[in-house]
């Protein structure tokens, strides 16, 4: 078996919360509670779940913006955690991020050119190389070279997101981390950005990790899908397996609650949820909002079981 491009092994991220000045009564919030994931070259892996489920923290850990409490992250089979020989510069070429809010993700005091050229210059490009690269990347994301002289506020939300994508691609990273890349955008603009991302993935053979709660977008873009629930992965598999045969009750609930215009057209085709077999006993799922799993507790000794080839579901033992 080939070595995956990115591999996350038993990742834990914990935050101390509450407690007094002297450190009494501090509890550990287990934001990410033993996550294992892998991403193959050229693949789009989506992590779905609701706010607070740990999907963003996982992404930040991969980006090096959040130090993991334990666990390992490997790129091409080599660890990138705690490796002193790996500089910020090297790390910048591994993964780059596209942020959710196109209004907060661009520095209002910098022109597009400034925000794109600074990283290039930092990584040793000459002035003319940088200019060529910027013109090239702007064209790739569907903007014009003359847009480089403008400030962020002169662009619409969709154009800003294109600039955000250009900035993420400027150093030619191996992985693009998409943090809710379209959820702040209008429907029509959303479609353009999704099309753009899929085109770029094909042209530049990029690998995506996408964080999203929008299952419509996830189904459209992903190769593999991981469903996260309170710091743990409860179901992971190929996109068609997840959407056609969701097995974990939480996944089913998630899919069933998406407001989908098609449900009024086909009220009796209650999508995949109807066809799925009842879950085996002992699933790690707490159905009511008032009765959520304890995020302070250590990971329960539960396993992902393989219900079909490359389709894993968590079952509490």
């Amino acid at each position, binding site marked *: 078996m080939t070595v995956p491009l990115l591999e996350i092994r038993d990742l834990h991220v914990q935050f101390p919360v509450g407690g007094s000045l002297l450190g009494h009564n501090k509890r550990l919030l287990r934001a990410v509670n033993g996550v294992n994931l892998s991403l193959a070259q050229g693949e789009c892996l989506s992590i779905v779940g609701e706010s607070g489920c740990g999907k963003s923290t996982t992404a930040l850990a991969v980006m090096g913006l959040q130090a993991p409490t334990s666990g390992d992250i490997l790129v091409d089979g080599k660890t990138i955690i705690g490796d002193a020989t790996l500089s910020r510069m090297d790390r910048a070429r591994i993964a780059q991020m596209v942020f959710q809010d196109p209004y907060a993700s661009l520095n209002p005091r910098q022109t597009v050119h400034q925000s794109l050229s600074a990283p290039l210059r930092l990584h040793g490009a000459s002035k003319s190389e940088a200019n060529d690269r910027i013109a090239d990347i702007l064209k790739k994301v569907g903007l014009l070279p003359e847009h480089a002289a403008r400030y962020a506020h002169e662009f619409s939300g969709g154009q800003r997101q294109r600039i955000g994508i250009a900035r993420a691609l400027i150093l030619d990273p191996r992985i693009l981390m998409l943090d809710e890349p379209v959820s702040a955008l209008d*429907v029509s603009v959303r479609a353009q950005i999704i*099309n753009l991302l899929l085109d770029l993935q094909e042209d530049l053979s990029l690998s995506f990790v996408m964080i999203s*709660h929008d299952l*419509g977008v996830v189904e459209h873009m992903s190769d593999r899908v991981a469903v996260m629930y309170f710091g743990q992965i409860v179901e992971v598999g190929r996109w*068609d397996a997840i959407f056609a045969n969701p097995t974990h009750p939480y996944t089913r609930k998630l899919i069933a609650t998406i407001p989908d*215009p098609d449900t009024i*057209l086909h009220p009796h085709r209650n999508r995949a949820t109807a066809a799925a077999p009842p879950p085996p006993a002992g699933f790690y799922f707490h159905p009511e909002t008032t009765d959520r799993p304890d995020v302070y507790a250590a990971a329960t000794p539960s396993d992902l079981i393989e219900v079909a080839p490359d389709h894993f579901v968590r079952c509490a033992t």
Partner: protein
Amino acid sequence: MTDTPLLELKNLHVGIPKRDGYLDIVKDVSFSIMPGEAFGLVGESGSGKSLTALSLIRLLKKPLKVSKGQILFKGRDLQTLSDREMRGLRGERIAMIFQEPMTALNPLKTVGRQIAEMFVLHRGMGWAEAGRKAVDALASVKVPAPEERVLAYPHQMSGGMRQRVMIAIALACDPDLLIADEPTTALDVTVQDEVLKLIGELCAARGTAVLMISHDLGVIANMCQRVGVMYSGRLVEERDTYDLFAAPRHPYTKGLLGALPRLGTRHGAAGRQRLVDIDGLIKDREALLQEFCFQPRNTIRDPRLRADGAA
């Protein structure tokens, strides 16, 4: 159902006053809502859907004004009411819930007090009685342990619970019309589902009409009997929800539906179709608006007739 609309907008224009007349942002919007009916306004940001809603309750921000047209609520033109009469109507007959419940609730008062205020203000109850009613109101929006929760402050509740409190406040006086402006956009999907179901159930039980404003076609489709699609300040299509989603007529509506990545539309591993690019579709926005725009109709009252008549 009577055939007198609860709310009727006739050629509504909203604009910014200029030296020579108005710069209109909402142009010539006409629709009506029957008692107990759920009507959806869908559109992208800047389409004018929220301004339309704010003009209904006369809460437009400073330079904006209704420049032309009528807003008839139970046959009375809201434009002609005094500020005092309008205040009496807001909260009492027309209630509103907003996107972000945290900013709409007062952080310094318990949620129970904020609900009770509605009864004191509009029903003239004493605080003790209003407080008891507040517990009932919280129970009706399915907040667990309402006797304890009335004493909670907004920041002690989750987003979904806060939105339930907003709904309890809005429905406290049994209004005739509930305006819900993106009520679930800030919520997670499973919570959104619960809140939408709650709004649907409560309004159906009380016969409250709903004006639901959203950018999310899925939300509108599942909540509303009729939908108006707004684009660039105009109402470009107004139809029965089922008809609209089954066979959209206006090119913009078609584009909007095509631009949406919908569940179950991807077939096979390689079957990723490109989503419709509306900007590519719309070359000349004004021509598009003129070509297909629904003409204002004041005489035909039945929405079904209206939709067909315009085809």
